[in-house]
């Protein structure tokens, strides 16, 4: 391959990352579309079904992203558009009704059905909002039918979750005027959710609700007394929709690592007027335990250079964690798009020497990677083995959305995800026979 010289990188401006110059690129993007979120969303919402209205490509994407996890009968499927559906719209709507009726008859336990838009359904302007209304009526409210877009022309990877949760916002019941509550937004593993519930409880913060909830029939309330705490940085649209319903967004770093988790809990504690003493009393032990657990991994990670290709949208918070708590040096932190409102606290923590890039021109980014040769590269599944074959250690970004990584108890697990490829390289020894 004869590649042109790496493009020159603008020098970082002095100051904080918040008023930063960043590399903006356009070109080929190597990232999943928002349909991928179905893989983790359907695990969380145990009584919901996700029906993609799309093509064979969409069905194949979800199946490939879900990988080995073939379930007996999954709670997601694709209504694949066929040649005759593209002939006329009336036909298309009727077909969709037929498929939905078939599906609901087969799965009576489903309480909420998501109609998920795709690139083809959007390009042919199939009105899924309308379809959702029509179908809700025809099923007499037995099933809540909601639509959102996971299309690749509108969304990357984790943005699908943002669209899904945003679609639920109008469905949330109102929180009575006089009441206050904390609403945590973003899919968390049940075990992590329970850990946070215990911490909030000990802090004296409550009631605490989660979006998405475990069951789609138990939607949390929202109103002017709602304080919003985001568990994931890619939920900007959902946050703005909740703000429009009166909620107040708590500015905080994301709960990755000890520092992130402390900052995140602190934002909630301040807003609920919990005193410092109380906060210390509740968090000191788990924070110390997490630091102890992290120490071992820090030995492995400290001083190592890491690059993130734009993918899960978790890149900036994770770079912050790895830099500040594990001593790693971020070389380039790529992100599919930069939502500054959601990342204010993160950007102010990230070292001002860090090079950020937004968007992607895959080939140029790989050129930079090859010339800078970081010790570890975080990238998508399609790129991992080819980069390993070039001698670059990699970590798959998709693991970061499938694995519990939030909170004190998972801080070391999170670090370990980055250690493993490095440790593995250390362990393996092969002789070359001659």
């Amino acid at each position, binding site marked *: 391959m004869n590649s042109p010289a790496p493009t020159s990188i603008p020098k970082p401006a002095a100051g904080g990352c918040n008023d930063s110059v960043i590399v903006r690129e356009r070109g080929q993007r190597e990232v999943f579309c928002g349909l991928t979120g179905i893989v983790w969303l359907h695990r969380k919402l145990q009584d919901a079904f996700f029906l993609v209205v799309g093509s064979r490509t969409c069905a194949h994407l979800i199946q490939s992203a879900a990988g080995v996890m073939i379930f007996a*009968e999954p709670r997601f499927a*694709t209504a694949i558009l*066929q040649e005759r559906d593209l002939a006329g719209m009336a036909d298309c709507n009727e077909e969709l009704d037929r498929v939905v009726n078939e599906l609901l008859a087969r799965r009576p336990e489903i309480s909420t059905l998501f109609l998920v838009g795709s*690139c083809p359904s959007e390009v042919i302007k199939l009105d899924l909002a309308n379809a959702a209304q029509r179908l809700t009526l025809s099923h007499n409210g037995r099933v809540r039918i909601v639509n959102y877009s996971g299309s*690749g022309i509108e969304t990357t990877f984790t943005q699908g979750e943002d669209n899904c949760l945003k679609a639920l916002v109008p469905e949330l019941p109102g929180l009575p005027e006089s009441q206050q509550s904390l609403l945590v937004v973003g899919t968390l593993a049940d075990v992590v959710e329970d850990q946070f519930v215990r911490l909030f409880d000990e802090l004296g913060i409550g009631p605490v609700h989660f979006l998405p909830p475990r069951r789609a029939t138990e939607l949390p309330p929202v109103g002017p007394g709602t304080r919003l705490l985001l568990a994931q940085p890619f939920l900007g649209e959902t946050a703005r929709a909740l703000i429009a319903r009166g909620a107040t967004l708590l500015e905080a770093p994301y709960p990755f690592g000890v520092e992130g988790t402390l900052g995140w809990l602190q934002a909630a504690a301040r807003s609920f007027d919990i005193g410092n003493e109380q906060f210390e009393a509740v968090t000191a032990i788990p924070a110390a335990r997490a630091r102890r657990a992290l120490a071992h991994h820090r030995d492995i990670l400290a001083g190592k250079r890491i690059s993130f290709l734009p993918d899960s949208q978790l890149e900036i918070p994770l770079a912050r964690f790895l830099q500040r708590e594990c001593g790693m040096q971020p070389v380039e932190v790529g992100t599919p798009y930069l939502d500054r409102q959601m990342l204010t606290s993160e950007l102010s923590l990230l070292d001002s020497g860090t090079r950020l890039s937004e968007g992607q021109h895959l080939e140029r980014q790989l050129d930079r990677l090859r010339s800078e040769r970081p010790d570890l590269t975080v990238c998508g599944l399609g790129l991992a083995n*080819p980069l390993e074959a070039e001698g670059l250690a990699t970590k798959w970004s998709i693991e970061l959305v499938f694995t519990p990584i939030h909170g004190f108890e998972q801080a070391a697990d999170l670090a370990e995800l980055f250690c493993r490829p490095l440790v593995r390289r250390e362990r393996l020894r092969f002789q070359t026979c001659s």
Partner: protein
Amino acid sequence: MQLTLWTYEGPPHVGAMRIATSMQGVHYVLHAPQGDTYADLLFTMIERRDRRPPVTYTTFQARDLGGDTANLVISAVREAYERFKPQALLVGESCTAELIQDQPGGLAAGMGLPVPVVPLELPAYSKKENWGASETFYYLVRTLLKDLEPPERVPGSRPRANLLGPSAMGFRVRDNIEEVRRLLDRVGIDVNVVAPEGASPADLLRIPEADFNICLYPEVAQTTCAWLERTFKQPFTRTVPIGVNATCEFLAEIGALSGIQVSSSLSAEDQSRLPWYSRSVDSNYLTGKRVFIFADATHALAAARMASEELGFEVVGLGTYSREFARQVRQAASDLGLEALITDDYLEVEARITEAEPELVLGTQMERHIAKRLGLPCAVISAPFHVQDVPARYSPQMGFEGANVLFDTWVHPLMMGLEEHLLGMFRDDFEFHDGAAPSHLGGGPEANAAARDGNGVKTMADGGAGPAWDHEAERELRKIPFFVRGKARRNTERFACDAGLETITLETLYDAKAHFGR
């Protein structure tokens, strides 16, 4: 609209990617949104390929749609050409781009690039992956070869054949190529070109120099072979050498095509061990085993034949998702007294397997999951497959060694003969039931069997205080054959537990036997 849970085949542009990824010096520019880049992982993860598929995606977004997506194609083609300098360029679109009608193939063809540009039109809403692979290979070969004159044969040299059809994400391609090469070499035939796997466009130009073509993967190569036959008078083989009998027929076929006396060039050691293994007494237990087969057409047909002729199984279901070859599969099924299952609906396949009550399932990755759910033994014999079906060791499916591999692969999930014999002897004992698992397969299947029986009770043997075995009962327990002793112990303990007994006596043991033996 078609409601789909899992799909056997990807869209047709993934078929085109399979051809591009198989080859050297070919690049594919695909007009597609960013999410479609997922397809790279099929090759880099499942097949562990060490380089990216040679594909540039335009990754247009919604904001480009009103504007100039066509320009995006042109700049992507130009950049890809300049960076990768391919010998030939494939240009096409995925499902979404098909709807916006930019005609990327036409655009690229008009750019005056100094290499052949092959526009691909692969209708995404009616066709699928294998068809896409087949068409792409055909378009590419036709574009490169259409103006060539048939070359003169040099007299006196060994006959030469091309191996056509092996491609990325094809089943056991690496080892099948090797095995067929060995086979041809032994009978005195040289391999001219293997394509698409490993070939460059320059290699494709040498295709006409062979005497005949071997159509190894008809799903991918049959259209191309038929064109080559018409254009260059190159005959091609109709038999795919999977199984002992098919391999013999294949040899006879290439013997006839090349004028070689094949039988005289093969020694006894060249032959498969399968016939002897199948005749040996241990294999008696294979007789009439009920097997359900669902795969791509080539592998389904081959497996049905092997299962009935070479292993003495009873084929109780035969089907394929390859509609293009439905006729042949229908014929084979009716020869076996069955009605073929032609579908790509995973749920229908599952329903038919459940209905047929097979003792072994031969299928794809999908059937592996169906079988797991039903607690049935299964072997994967065809794409679609997963990472565990790309083994590190040499394990072809074709040729005589392939037959050996298939014998082992199909028999492994079953009971060994001796074991089944013992099971027969002890049939009336309470510890046996249909779910008793082969002893060489660990605890997994037994756990499944327990789940099937609704026997989720934690047993005393798992730890914790339970009834104690008295000396006599313990001694009796040791007389029970080792491979079912665990089950006897658990059943007895469960029985004692339910009965509220603190000590298990000889009496309890036989009470339990009577209880569970009902």
